[in-house]
């Protein structure tokens, strides 16, 4: 840091060399500012995409500012195919692949090696199934890759670590009903997902997982045809590829690729699903069917959601429920972008028990207004401008460039729509107010709202006399029982 002592002097010289401050008047309003043109073209796979001899695709994005290399292995795997008696196996396999040692080395030995290098080597679940992530100093990359491949190809799943993992799961299960936020998350998922595609692990299913099951699940999924590699940092493809090739030698799999690893949604009877948790603030979340991201209405719907509640402080729900009425701190909505299949459109807030129904009525009111087409051209223009202007910030580092390329590969969009990123800004620009109004009328159907409310059930069910509201006014009310945290069997309601 010796160079630093010179810097104040350098900056002084820079200032002296420029126009004196305050010589020109400042623009009166930020809309009067004139900005330099920013021409930005999104990254393309050319020059970054490579294919190994066994078919594994590798993305490499160089960044030599610091001597660090990241190598991530994304592993396509389908949790939905877990045997019913072994729910938790998928999570367990990916978590223990990194923590359970290898066939050659004890887990603790590997962990100490990695820590001594100041490196990181982790495994776990990710949106495509699972992942193994390595980060090390450039000079230690070979050592890091050796250990990474040991875990990837020949994991140990040693018994003591399996037992430790089971103990951790059991401890985590015990806290399932404790935090209202967690309770809300698990109950809305239980309600909205197809039961055949999403199941909660229980003490019994976790207890039934043994080393053999882990090895079988590993054998089934952690195969070259399911792996995509994303590398970035202080390394070139020329340096990296032979290193990967050498370690993948003789590694070929047999299984077939599948498409979606996500649980599917189901049609839920509209109404209010009430979960009792006696605290002084209700957590409210409501759902409508969303869209497939390849749907031609996707962009108008995306912009609609920005105007409704996705656009932060300037969105309708925030302006009304938070800014104007002071009824909530966190308010928002999201049009869920799923890689495969249709997602949900949801909105959520938290408000004190007494104002639950009133805040819900404000949400309905805003949804109805938009459904009727009460959307201003100015607000739409702002939402479009944000999306277009912010575009370059999506690719703010070698890591985000590399992972966005991998995403396009894994989702299949690189093949189905290779110009997606290049055309996106022009497509956004072309969305008209009419397009948004049309999709608003189609998607925003207040009578189809499914509400999940977690809070003090007895108080929430009381009519709100001041605003002349009842909970039944939002649809049939269903009391959702809490579940035994370990067995997930329903508990009595009262």
């Amino acid at each position: 840091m010796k160079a630093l002592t010179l810097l104040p002097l350098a900056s002084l010289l820079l200032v002296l060399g420029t126009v004196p401050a305050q010589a020109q008047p400042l623009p009166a309003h930020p809309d009067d500012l004139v900005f330099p043109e920013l021409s930005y073209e999104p990254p393309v796979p050319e020059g970054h995409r490579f294919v190994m001899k066994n078919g594994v695709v590798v993305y490499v994005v160089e960044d030599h500012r610091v001597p660090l290399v990241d190598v991530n292995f994304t592993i396509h795997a389908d949790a939905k195919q877990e045997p019913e008696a072994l729910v938790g196996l998928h999570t367990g396999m990916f978590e223990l692949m990194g923590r359970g040692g290898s066939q050659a080395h004890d887990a603790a030995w590997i962990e100490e090696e990695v820590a001594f290098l100041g490196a990181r080597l982790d495994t776990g679940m990710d949106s495509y199934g699972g992942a193994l992530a390595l980060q090390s100093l450039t000079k230690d990359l070979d050592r890091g890759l050796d250990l990474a491949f040991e875990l990837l190809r020949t994991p140990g799943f040693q018994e003591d670590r399996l037992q430790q993992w089971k103990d951790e799961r059991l401890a985590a299960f015990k806290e399932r009903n404790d935090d209202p936020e967690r309770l809300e998350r698990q109950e809305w998922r239980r309600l909205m997902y197809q039961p055949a595609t999403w199941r909660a692990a229980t003490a019994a299913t976790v207890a039934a997982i043994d080393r053999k099951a882990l090895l079988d699940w590993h054998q089934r999924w952690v195969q070259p045809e399911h792996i995509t590699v994303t590398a970035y940092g202080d390394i070139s493809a020329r340096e990296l590829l032979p290193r990967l090739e050498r370690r993948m030698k003789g590694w070929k799999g047999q299984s077939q690729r599948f498409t979606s690893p996500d649980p599917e949604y189901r049609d839920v009877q509209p109404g209010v699903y009430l979960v009792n948790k006696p605290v002084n603030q209700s957590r409210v979340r409501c759902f409508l069917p969303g869209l497939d991201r390849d749907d031609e209405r996707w962009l108008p719907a995306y912009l609609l959601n920005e105007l409704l509640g996705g656009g932060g402080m300037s969105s309708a729900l925030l302006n009304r429920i938070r800014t104007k009425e002071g009824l909530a701190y966190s308010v928002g909505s999201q049009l869920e972008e799923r890689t495969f299949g249709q997602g949900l459109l949801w909105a959520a807030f938290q408000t004190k028990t007494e104002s639950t129904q009133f805040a819900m009525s404000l949400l309905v009111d805003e949804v109805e207004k938009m459904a009727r087409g009460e959307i201003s051209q100015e607000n739409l223009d702002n939402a479009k401008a944000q999306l277009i202007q912010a575009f370059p910030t999506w690719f703010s580092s070698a890591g985000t460039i590399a992972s966005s390329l991998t995403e396009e590969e894994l989702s299949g969009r690189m093949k189905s729509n290779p110009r997606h990123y290049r055309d996106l800004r022009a497509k956004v620009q072309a969305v008209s107010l009419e397009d948004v109004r049309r999709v608003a009328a189609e998607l925003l159907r207040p009578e189809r709202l499914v509400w999940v409310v977690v809070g003090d059930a007895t108080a929430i069910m009381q009519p709100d006399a001041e605003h002349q509201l009842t909970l039944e006014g939002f649809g049939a009310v269903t009391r959702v029982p809490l579940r035994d945290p370990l067995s997930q069997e329903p508990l009595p309601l009262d």
Partner: protein
Amino acid sequence: MNATPTGGLRRALLAAMLLMAGAAQAGLPVTEHVLANGMRFLIIEDHTAPTFMGAWVAHVGSSNETPGQTGLTHLLEHMMFKGTRVIGTKDLDKDLALLARQEELMRALRERSRGLLLEVRQGLAPSLAEARKADPECVRLEDEFQKLVAEQRENMIPNEFDQIMQKNGELFGNAFTSQDMTAYFNVLPANKLELWFWLESDRLINPVMREFYAERDVVYEERRMRTEATPTGIHEEAVNSLFWQASPYHWPIIGWPSDVAELSMSQAEAYYHTWYGPGNITGILAGDFKTRDAIQLAERYFGRMEARPAPPALVTLEPRQLGEVRYTGEVEINPTVNLRYHCGGFKHKDSGVLEVLASLLSGDTGRLQRHLVQEGKTAVRAWAYYERMKHEGAFQVEAEAAQGVDNATLESALDAELRRLVDQPVPERELQKIKNTYFVDTYREQQSPIRAAFELINSAGCGDWREQEAFSRRIQAVTAEDVRRVAGELLRKENRMVTWWVRKAGAASAAEPAGLSSLPTDMQAATRQMLARMKQFSDVAALAGLQGQLGSANATDANEATMNRILLEAVTARLAELQAKGGSK
């Protein structure tokens, strides 16, 4: 890993030398520039991507508040998004006149409330809010106030500050308040550098605190969300205020509820004048621009701010704690023990040693994981953390009890582990492992300009942005003897607070039947499943049959006997419950 003093040590030193070889490490490449009015700028030019992060940190946190006004720093942070003399209004003069009238009414309301507060203290009214609702004059003032608010809304452009940021391509923008600082940050496309300067200097020079009182309600919802409607929130608030005796760290950042309810716009304006002068603010920019341009814009926009007197210094020093403090909270989490020790803060000479101590205990290869979780099986999860705050520090060690282990046993196991740090020198290789991790971490900080900017926010906010680099150097210089010395000074009973979290019995997590937790995992799981089903089962005849079977069953081993006993007790209880209800359906 048998680290014999000779072979092991030599290998460790060799490895350490290899690690350091070829890497002359530099800190963040920062250009510092100070304006004539005292405002400091820290600038990192980085052309990796066409984007930048702009931030400014006001050197004021909740620890600068005074009793009765707690929560004011945080509420002021919210108010800084409410617009200025230019942003957020259709007619400024009308706006200001309405605000003045609102403030007058609120003053009258507060005057009126003094007598009501006495009623609360006398135990005659449950709360000030309730007393006001029952007082016709208060109701009248409140109604009149709400009319003015409605009138003002007609004249406002709500959330215009955020709107402008967003339509110009903001990726994210937010602010936070801590005990030591208040920071505001945005990520924007590279060509919007001047916009950042325009908006940020405008709100620092000309803030108008519209919707103050509605925002106070928003903050109360934030308090419910973060503190009151969480398993341990209000207890943690109590624990914190017991830990700090004199230090203003002892009140919550969000403020005591009774204080927040009485905060006024005038107080916020006065607080702003005291603490938001240019000499008390550091601007931070990192990303794709020319340093020369950034400095020029800083001079142009922030050079307009008039210098203000330095705000008062925090003089309070935390006195030495004289005896162990203990707290037991009945909450909805698994049984957990937390130990919290007093120690030095941000610039303390031993901060590097304290950080190393926390690392020795924490993480995948830390001692708590190895000894308590994996070998002793007394904990299911354990960590240590050094809270390096501006004026003081705290050293925390926490563990969640393993199945069947009580908090007393867990506390003894933690004590034994901590004692080893005092009694035995840390092996060289173990110490080197931690130094290596920190060495690589300094590169991690530089992986993205956004991350680097956050590092600067924290270190500048604690009073010295260069400290982060000094801290890294101190970590690399730590010796085994330092560790033993500091552990000995730190880990004394009279220097700590012990918190026990014990699980509150409740419907969703009924108390455990005796012996259940000592069964093997699979047996336990099966038993739990049967217990849960039994609660739903209402067929009296079948239950009675099961009761008979369990009563006469001959167990083949002790575990099976325990399981039978637990199930028998449950069947008997369920039968009694159903009979009390009077029916079999």
